[in-house]
């Protein structure tokens, strides 16, 4: 499966950091997008990503709707959040999703995304 990842993160520098890390490791990055609206539009319009990496708090609300849209398309998602229990902010749909944390460790990010990619096959 092609290594494509949608990044949803509203802090532009953090989004750029994540995108650069993943691009260097051969991932094609969709986005990064900073809002629920942009994320949903991107998911509606074109090819679905193989996996998604989600921030929880976005400028226009919690990432819940994006997670639901991804679930409907069978796209596995990983969260990158400072919250130890993202489901308390973003709802039950986030319970059990792997969390690579914020600040995000590069090795952990790559390992968890590879694993998510494996599970989507």
């Amino acid at each position, binding site marked *: 499966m092609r290594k494509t990842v949608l990044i949803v993160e509203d*802090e*532009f*520098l*953090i989004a*750029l*950091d994540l995108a*650069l890390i993943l691009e260097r490791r051969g991932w094609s990055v969709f986005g990064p997008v900073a809002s629920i609206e942009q994320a949903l539009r991107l998911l509606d319009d074109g090819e679905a990503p193989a996996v998604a990496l989600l921030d929880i*708090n976005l400028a226009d609300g919690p990432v819940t709707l994006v997670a639901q849209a991804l679930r409907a398309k069978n796209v596995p998602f990983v969260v990158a959040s400072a919250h130890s229990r993202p489901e308390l902010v973003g709802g039950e749909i986030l319970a059990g999703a792997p969390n690579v944390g914020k600040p*995000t460790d*590069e090795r952990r990010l790559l390992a968890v995304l590879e694993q998510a990619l494996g599970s989507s096959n």
Partner: protein
Amino acid sequence: MNLEDFYRVIRNSHVRAQGIVDTVAEPLLVLDSELRVEASNRAFHETFKVDRDETVGERLHELGNGQWDIPELRRLLEEVIPKSTAIVDYEVKHDFPGLGLRTMLLTAHRLYHPDNNARTLLLSMVDATERRKRETEKDLLLGELRHRMKNLLALVLAMARQTSTEGRSAEEYREAFLGRFNALVRAHDIAFAESSGIGLWDVIEQTLEPYKTNSPAVMLEAGPAVALTPAQLQPLSLVLHELATNAVKHGALSLPNGKIRVHWLVETGSKKLLRLSWQEISGPSVSPPKVTGFGTRLIQVAAAELGGNVELNYEAPGFRAEITMPLGSI
């Protein structure tokens, strides 16, 4: 005075006891085994807007048109208290007519009578509504603070990780990283110092301050007054910082006679647009970088974050950057 003594005082010299009960700041009721009020204090009457006559002799759940008819409380008093001797700070949330939704902490003690088997309860109630509200607000604030701190750490990590090490000595890497780090710190300083709008002039001046060792080289020309929002401050400062470090490394500030002209104008059409221009003069001839590095990507995403765009032009007479961004209606 223990509770038994206290109760004896109430029984034996009612008037004096009433005085004591009234000095207790928290609402207080003395209930008999039928949960009928034997005595009540002034704090109770004031808090629940009732008078003594309509309180004493009534059963608790019939008081004040049934405002104390709380199933949870009845169960507590009828079932729990007989088995234990006290309940401390039991939290009850109830909508009291005329008072609204309150959080009450109830403390009930069973009083022991050596002379007969009568059961009497002393029930006090503390209105913890405001305290609970303050605690919730404090938790929210601490959560938000923790979140912001993590975000800030993630920003610093991003800069440390993405500042290139290629072809650089450790010292050069440190200088490049700390330059970006300091630009971030300055942006925070300015944001905290100014409570109202942040002037564009000040932002440019303070961001370029470390590069003005040879001050005539940077020619800052004031345009119309522009007030920036805190959200615009950080991306714009970072863009200016990247332009300045590039000028020092490869551009006009790498030559003794090189100059930079910074000026802006505001276009007022259907929406207000800021056009900020960075023109390098008498610098070395420059060409576009072969690989888009972190610095250039940073400039592009920061401009996008500002809702605008940036044009980088490497042709003669010198490097030029033009940032276009919308301004709020200030």
